[in-house]
């Protein structure tokens, strides 16, 4: 296994009085795609926010390399780790290029504004998400898939060695979802970035990620290479379903069905 790039150690975090997880320990290897999966409210998005210091830890530490994320300024941290949230917002009059340019904040000089390196990074990011042709279009005039790619361009332009993505395929049709995850893979395998991605769709996660981390109720119930974690008994336990894994030409697929307990309850209800 490659070196650990990002880690949570005995971490506890939550919102208000509610703790989403505690005692969570998680290691993200460098240069790979790690997918965080699990049912709604299991703590996968919260874990992502904790890694990016968007949420303070009540206990434990979030580490990047071997230093806690709290030891860096906002600017320094942004040069090491980028993140795209689930519902990013920006005014509609920004062009695609403007939006990608906002990813350069931590690099560009405070006084002279963006320089040649910034422009090169923006161009590279736009071409990576295949939006070079639409660079001057206001983001209000983009389709859902184009807009999601424009946000990815901002995140890529940040040129951070680690990238965290929270449900990047949300609201995308299947073609754009595949395209986005293809980019995610290239970010890791061709550009050497460490990518952590929260994904709802287990089948897409199994196909595009190198490693899976399965969450349930704020605990990690399984982590490792896809081949080790993508198993019926583990998935059944995490999602409270029955399932079968079938091998297809593009990879393993999970076929879920109601587990026996739920089916039995259903049967009783029908009988009554």
């Amino acid at each position, binding site marked *: 296994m490659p070196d650990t790039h990002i880690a949570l150690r005995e971490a506890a975090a939550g919102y208000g009085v509610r703790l989403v997880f505690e005692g969570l320990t998680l290691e993200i290897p460098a240069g790979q795609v790690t997918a965080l999966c699990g049912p709604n409210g299991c703590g996968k998005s919260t874990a992502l*926010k904790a890694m990016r210091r968007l949420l303070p830890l009540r206990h434990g530490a979030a580490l990047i390399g071997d230093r806690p994320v709290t030891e860096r300024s*906002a*600017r320094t941290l942004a040069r090491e780790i980028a*993140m795209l949230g689930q519902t*990013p*917002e920006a005014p509609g*009059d920004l062009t695609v290029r403007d939006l990608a340019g*906002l990813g350069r*904040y931590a690099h560009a000089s405070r006084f002279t504004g963006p320089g040649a390196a910034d422009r090169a990074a923006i161009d590279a990011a736009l071409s990576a998400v295949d939006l070079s042709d639409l660079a001057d279009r206001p983001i209000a005039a983009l389709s859902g898939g184009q807009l999601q790619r424009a946000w990815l361009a901002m995140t890529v332009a940040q040129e951070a060695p680690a990238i965290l993505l929270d449900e990047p395929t949300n609201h995308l049709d299947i073609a754009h979802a595949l395209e986005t995850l293809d980019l995610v893979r290239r970010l890791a395998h061709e550009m050497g970035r460490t990518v952590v991605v929260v994904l709802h769709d287990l089948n897409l996660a199994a196909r595009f990620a190198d490693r899976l981390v399965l969450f349930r109720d704020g605990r990690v119930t399984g982590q490792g290479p896809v081949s080790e974690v993508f198993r019926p008994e583990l998935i059944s336990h995490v999602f409270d379903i029955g399932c079968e894994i079938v091998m297809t030409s593009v990879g393993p697929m999970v076929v879920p069905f109601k587990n026996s307990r739920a089916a039995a309850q259903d049967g009783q209800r029908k009988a009554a």
Partner: protein
Amino acid sequence: MNVTAARLGLLGMLLSALLLTGIGTGSSFLGPDRVIAALWGTGERMDMVIVWTLRLPRVALAALAGAALALSGALLQRATRNPLAAPSVLGITDGAAVGVLLFLTISSDAANHLTVPVAWQPAFAGLGATGFALLVLLLGGRHRADPLRLLLYGVALAALAKALVVLLLIVGPVYRASQALIWLAGSVQAAQGRDVVLLGSVLGLSLPVLILLARPLDQLRLDPDSAFATGLPVAAVRGAALALAVALAAGAVSVAGGIGFVGLLAPHAARLLFGSRAAPQLIGAALLGAAMTTGADLLVRLAFQPLEVPVGAVTAALGAPFFLWLLNRRGDPHA
């Protein structure tokens, strides 16, 4: 970019024309040539007196107060990401008025003379404005997702501040009661050179801060999480923008009273004209705000002669319907 520059140039010309007309208009009309000559120091003696001591303080104060309130509103809207935020809406204007009247009440003696230098007045305006701003932001800030909630707290606390102002006016031994009345509606009729210098310095001091804030404010167009993820120290930038907004509003209110709705209207108009980039929008808002108050003051002088109607009454009469329209509008309020 060229469109932006052209529009800013046009706005600048409009403002200059309003300023020249404002200075020229009065019981004896001076043409622009005579106003310019007097301003330049080459005019006739009589013109110089009229321009420099009678008219310029009033017109300059109107323009500076409009610019300060517009900048304050633009900063508030950006920092709170709330398109309905403005110094008058968030209780800052009325809070400053409470500070001023508190100052006048506690520092006047039995003969209604001030016992401390009047230079302390803006400091008290600042304290009142800061106090009410903090209250509104603390109460409303807990409900980030709901922009109307912040507004409701602002309206409630502004009403409280207004009540306090009236109470202090009635109860307190007030130094120059007629002057105190201007804080109810906002007026520049009693402008003095001292007021112009004071507000001018507040604006002058805020300029370097605004220049430093331009890029961070651009970044703050992103939602707070995305802005932080790209490296912006969000809390610090918001804090700085809010503090500057409060200082600008307090400075304007302490010398010109609560001129309403300029701080809401001007930033919106600037946003429509110049888009979401911070530098052009802030410059545009300042020019528009100055033009609005200068124009409104000119209007009250021409339309209601010889009555003196507070300029704030005109800006409120024009601004309130616009505010209702904004409240009523559906869709993305930030686009």
